[in-house]
C-alpha cells in the first residue's frame, strides 16, 4: 500500500472519523484555501492544521519526506515568481513602498514581500491537510468513502482494485525486467532512444499480455461473487457517522463560508493592509 496512501494506524480522534468525513473535509478545506488570499484566514488554516496533526498523533518524521518535497517546491515557486514578476505585489495592491534594491528592475517592495507571505501561507494551509488525510485514512475505507460521497460504486471500487493490484504488477514488472536483462535487454541511458524504446517494449509487452490474463481472471472472480448485481452495495469497512463527523464537516464548511464571505468583504481575493 506504499503507493498512494501512507496509512499509519494510531488511535486518535482523527482516525476515528469516517473516511467519507475526512474526504468531505479535505475538499471543503482545499476549496477554502484555494479561494481566499485573505492573510488572516490563510494564517488561521496552518495553525488549525498543526493542531489537527497533534490530535492525530502523526509525528513530523512520519511525513518528513513529503514535507521536504513540498518545501523545495514552495521555495522554487517563490523564487520564480520574484524572478519573472518582481512587482506583482504592487500591481495587486495598488501602492508602492520600496524597501531596498537588488539592481535593475529587482526592487524589493513591502507589497511584494506581503504577496510572498500569502503564497507561503497558501502552501502551509493546503499541503499539511492532504498529508493528514493520506496518513489517517485506511485505504480499505477509501472506496467506501468515495461511494458515500456520491461516486458510483463501480468507479469507487476500481480505485480499491488499483490499490490492490498495483503492488502485484510492480512485482511482475521487476521479475520480467530481470529475466529480460539476462537476455541482454539493457535499460541504461547509454543507449540510443530507439534502442531504449525497443528494450522497454521487451518488458512492457509481456507485462501487458500477462496483465490481460489477470484482468480476465479478476473480472470473472468478481462477477462470480455477484459484483454488479444490485444498484447499491454495502461496505465491510464502511462506518457510521457520529456526532464528531458532523462537527468536523460543519467546521470545514464554516471555513469555506468564511473564505467566501471574506472575498465579498474584501471586494476581491486579496486582503489589502496597504489601502488604509
Amino acid at each position: 500500500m506504499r503507493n498512494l496512501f501512507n496509512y499509519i494506524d494510531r488511535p486518535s480522534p482523527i482516525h476515528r472519523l469516517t473516511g467519507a468525513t475526512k474526504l468531505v473535509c479535505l475538499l471543503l478545506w482545499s476549496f477554502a484555501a484555494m479561494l481566499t488570499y485573505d492573510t488572516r484566514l490563510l494564517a488561521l488554516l496552518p495553525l488549525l492544521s498543526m493542531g489537527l496533526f497533534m490530535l492525530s498523533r502523526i509525528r513530523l518524521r512520519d511525513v518528513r519526506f513529503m514535507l521536504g518535497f513540498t518545501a523545495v517546491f514552495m521555495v522554487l515557486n517563490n523564487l520564480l515568481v520574484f524572478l519573472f514578476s518582481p512587482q506583482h505585489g504592487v500591481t495587486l495592491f495598488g501602492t508602492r513602498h520600496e524597501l531596498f534594491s537588488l539592481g535593475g528592475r529587482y526592487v524589493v517592495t513591502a507589497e511584494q514581500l506581503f504577496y510572498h507571505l500569502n503564497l507561503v501561507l497558501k502552501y502551509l494551509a493546503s499541503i499539511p491537510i492532504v498529508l493528514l488525510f493520506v496518513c489517517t485514512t485506511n485505504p480499505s475505507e477509501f472506496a467506501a468513502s468515495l461511494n458515500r460521497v456520491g461516486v458510483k460504486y463501480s468507479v469507487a471500487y476500481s480505485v480499491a482494485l488499483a490499490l490492490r493490484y498495483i503492488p502485484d504488477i510492480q512485482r511482475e514488472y521487476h521479475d520480467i525486467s530481470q529475466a529480460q536483462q539476462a537476455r541482454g535487454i539493457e535499460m541504461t541511458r547509454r543507449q540510443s532512444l530507439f534502442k531504449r524504446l525497443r528494450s522497454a517494449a521487451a518488458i512492457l509487452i509481456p507485462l501487458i499480455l500477462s496483465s490481460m490474463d489477470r484482468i480476465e481472471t479478476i473480472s470473472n472472480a468478481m462477477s462470480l461473487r455477484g459484483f454488479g448485481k444490485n444498484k447499491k452495495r454495502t461496505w465491510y469497512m464502511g462506518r457510521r457517522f457520529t456526532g464528531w463527523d458532523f462537527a468536523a464537516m460543519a467546521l470545514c464548511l464554516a471555513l469555506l463560508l468564511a473564505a467566501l464571505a471574506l472575498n465579498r468583504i474584501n471586494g476581491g481575493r486579496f486582503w489589502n493592509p496597504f489601502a488604509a
Partner: protein
Amino acid sequence: MRDEIIRFEHFGFQYNAQSEPTLHDINFSVRRGEKVLVCGPSGCGKSTLAHCINGLIPFSYRGERTGSLTIAGKTADALGLFGISRHVGTVLQDSDDQFIGLTVAEDIAFALENDCVADPALHERTARAAALVGIDEGHMRHAPDELSGGQKQRVALAGVMVESVDLLLFDEPLANLDPATGKAAIEMIDDLQKSTGAAVVIIEHRLEDALHRDVDRVVLMGEGRILMDVSPDELLCGDALVKSGIREPLYVTALRYAGVKLTPDMAPRNIAALRLNEADREKVRAWYREQPEEAPGEEAPVLLEAEHIRFAYAGGHEALRDVSLRLRRGELVAIVGTNGAGKSTFSKVVCGFEVQREGALRLEGEDLNALSIKQRAESIGYVMQNPNQMISQVMIFDEVALGLRTRGVPEDEVKARVEAALKTCGLWPFRSWPVSALSFGQKKRVTIASILVLRPRILILDEPTAGQDFRHYTEIMEFLRDLSAQGYTVVMITHDMHLMLEYAGRALVFSGGELIADDACAAVLTDPALIERASLKETSLYALAVMCGIEDGRGFVRRFIAHEREAVRP
C-alpha cells in the same frame, strides 16, 4: 430428480470464436451431498464444463449451446449469472488473482457486500465463514502478500462459503500449492463437504493427490466427451486413464508392473484404503527381487560451486542462510520446498538478479561476482514459469534470436544458432510461425529455445511443467532429460513430487532460507522428518513397500524409478 443441483442432458457447447464444438453430448448430474472429481488431459473440455456449471458460460463466454442444462431445476437463462452464483460457489485456480479485497476480511465479505448485507450481519457472517475454514482473528486484516498460498486458498474458499451455496466448484485446487499444503487442501475440502452437506465438484488432473480423500465418482473426459463416470475404484482397475493420457497413481503403476490384477473390491482408490492379499504382496516382493540394483554412476566434474551464501532483501528477513552446494555437469537437479523457503531467491542470486551479502559463487573456478547479469546469462540461463512473461516478439524466429541480436552477433551466425536451438527444442517445423499460433507447452519450448540459443551451461527452470497434463509434462521432461544427456546442467524449481522422483537425480531441499537436504530423491521422499519439515509428501511407493513387507522401502522406490526409466520409456 429434486436433489439434483446440476443436470446436463445431451449438452453441447461451441465457443463463438471456434469452428468445432468444445463439448459434445454431455450427460452428467451432481446431487446434493455428492463429491465428484472431473479429470482429463488439457483441451478435453473440463474447464469449459466448469464454466457451464458456474455460469461464466453463457454470460461471460459466448457460444452456441445444444441440449439442456439445469441448475437447481432451472435453466441458466432463467437464473442469470448472479442467480447461479447463489447455488454454485467457485474457487478459481489462481488464488492470487481472485483475491479481490485489500485485506482478508474484505475479500471474504465481498459477496455479502454485493448482496447489500448490512451490519451487524455483514461482520458476523464474515467472521463465521473465516472460522469455518480455520482463518483466525489475527489474520483478518492481513493483505494478500502477507499470506501463504494455502492461506490464500482458504480465504477464497471462505469467500464463497460466506453465502450458503449448494455446490462448491474447485478449478484445479492443487496447482501452485506445495505438496503438504495440497494434501491439507484436499482434507479441508472433504471436511467442509461433510459438515455442510454441499455438493463438491473438483476439476483436477493430479489424480493421485486429488484422491487422497474419498470421492463418490470420477468423471473422465476426453476430446469434449465424458468417457467414463464411475467410482474411483472401478476407474483405477481399467486402462482408461493410461489411454487418455492421465497419470495413474504411482502405487497402481507399481502393482501393474508386479503383475497384480486390480479389482474394485481391493479398494485401490487410495493407498490407505488399498487391500492386498498375501499372494499379491508376494508378487510385489518377487518383482522387487528381480529388479537389478542400480549401479551408482560416475560423478561428473563440478560446474557451479556456491559457498556460504547469505542474502536478505532490503528491510526484510534473511532469505538465504549459509547455503553451500555444488552442481555437476549434465546433472538434472530439483529444488524443492515451500513458497518463501528460498528456492527462487537462490536461483536469482545464481543468475545475478540479486547479489548475495556473503559467500562466493564460482563457475568452473571462476568467480561469478565480477560478471553482470547479461554476462552471467551466457553461462546460466533462467526460464520463467509463465512463458507469457518472457515472450515479446511476434515471430518465433525473432523471439529466439532476441538474446543474440541484443549482443550484436552477426545476422548469419544468429540464423545458424537460432535454427540449431529450434531443432533442439523440436520447433523446427514452426520456424516461420507467429508465437500466438502455439499452445502453452510449445510457447514454453520457445522460451527454453530463446535461452538455449545463448549456449548456457546451466539452465534453471521455474516450475517447468506447471499447468501441463501428463502428455505435455512427459514431453517437456523428456526434452529436459535429453538436454542433460547432452551435457547441459538442468535445475528445476518444483512442487511436483512425481517430477522430482522420476527425473531428478538429486533434490536440494530448502526450508526457511536454509538448504536442509542435498540427497537422492528416493531418499528425500522416504524420510518422514525431512518431509514434515519441508512440506513435502511421502511417495505412495514407500507406503506400498511397507505394506508388502519390503524392508528397504527406499530401495524399492529406487528400483521402481530405474525400471520406469530403463524399461518403460522409449
